[in-house]
């Protein structure tokens, strides 16, 4: 549908360069609410990616048929449908994981990454590129959830994926699995991401200046 270079660029950009959580700072509810264990992060990431890919495909395919005035309502209907399907599927396949975060699965509907990608990308790009964009953004979101979940679970419960990582003498930092822990970890990681981006920018500028001075 499009040249492979463009496809790859749309696929990759969501993972680090335009990471929805750490760079765009969109859809911040799940990264705060469900990341007290790695497993929750993985399941939420996969469910969100599924909804993102399906609704982006649908919206991109129908983009010329949806009248401009009702586009947002139509997007919401499409997104809510896929969230409900994901909810049922999860309930049927992974009842334990669904049990852990039932309310948050339904709340994927209001995750603004999904509506954001629909409005900013899928509604004005062909299906192939929209799928690439959705997969990239979904992967970036999943990685962010897993990263936050790892820090919080390891420090807050002393486990990783439920397996103990420290000796029995480890005293868990209970605050990490509580809501404030989410804010703390997210804040530190945002700082880290912004710092790395800034350092890279400076390095690039310095390189350019050297190039020019020579």
């Amino acid at each position, binding site marked *: 549908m499009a040249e492979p270079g463009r496809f790859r660029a749309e696929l990759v950009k969501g993972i680090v360069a335009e990471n929805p959580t750490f760079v765009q700072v969109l859809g911040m509810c799940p990264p705060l609410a469900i990341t007290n264990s790695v497993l929750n992060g993985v399941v939420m990431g996969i469910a969100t990616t599924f909804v993102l890919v399906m609704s982006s495909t649908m919206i991109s395919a129908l983009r010329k048929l949806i009248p401009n005035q009702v586009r947002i309502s*139509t997007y919401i209907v499409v997104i809510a449908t896929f969230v409900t*399907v994901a909810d049922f599927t999860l*309930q049927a*396949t992974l009842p334990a994981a669904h049990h852990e975060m039932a309310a948050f699965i339904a709340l994927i509907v209001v995750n603004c990454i999904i509506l954001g990608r629909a409005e900013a990308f899928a509604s004005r790009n062909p299906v192939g590129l929209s799928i690439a964009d959705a997969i990239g953004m979904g992967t970036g979101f999943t990685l962010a959830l897993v990263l936050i979940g790892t820090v919080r679970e390891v420090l807050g419960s002393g486990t990783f994926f439920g397996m103990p990582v420290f000796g029995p003498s480890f005293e868990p930092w209970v605050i990490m699995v509580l809501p404030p822990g989410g804010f703390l970890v997210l804040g530190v990681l945002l700082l880290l991401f912004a710092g790395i981006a800034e350092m890279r920018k400076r390095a690039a500028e310095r390189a350019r200046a050297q190039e020019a001075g020579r």
Partner: protein
Amino acid sequence: MSDGASAGGESLRLVATLTVAGLVSGLAIVLAYRWTLPAIRAHQAAALERAVFEVLPGAERMERRVWDGSGLAGAGAGGAAGESVFAGYAADGALVGWAVPAAGAGFQDTIKLIFGLEPSGARTLGMTVLESRETPGLGDKIYKDPKFVGEFRGLAVAPEIKLIKGHGEAPNEVDAITGATISSKAVVRIVNQAAALWRPRLPAPGAEPSAAAGTAAAAPAAQVPPDVERGGPVPGGKPGGRS
């Protein structure tokens, strides 16, 4: 968009778009529901059965019994969900005990649990949580902490169960989970209420002597490892995690 129709035609198009979207969406949801329902039902039934056998150790077979106002009838009658118990039988047909489902307010949301009672109704045989949204890492210890769950094996319900901080010695005492006092309290309250409701309803155990109070088989204090109760300065009174 290109036909430049009148205002009426344009709104009709908007309405039509949303109608079609709603219809297709409704159809998709119904299909997904129909398709996943058997698996979801099977999971729920399996989870309930697992829970019944978990709280009635030694039971091999279970039967649902419905309270009809004067006695326990077979499951044929149907009855409301809160008004039935499960009888567990061992392989030789002897009654192991009664599994009593119960629910009540927890810290975040309703806690649904099920606990086993001896045929006499004097002691619990086990307890497991069916559904809860307690704070992960704290309140969820009401089912993830083996020590707390273990306390509900052989716990006397006759003077009602008491929640204490520290190490309970009496057969009706349960240690509160540090950092999850409200959730622990909720579990104890739910079990107490359901036990008080169901004990008079249980049929008198046939051959067995009903005076089981003196024969303390397994004191819960026997299974208290010293280090589990974390003595740190964790906020004891408030389990934190507002939502």
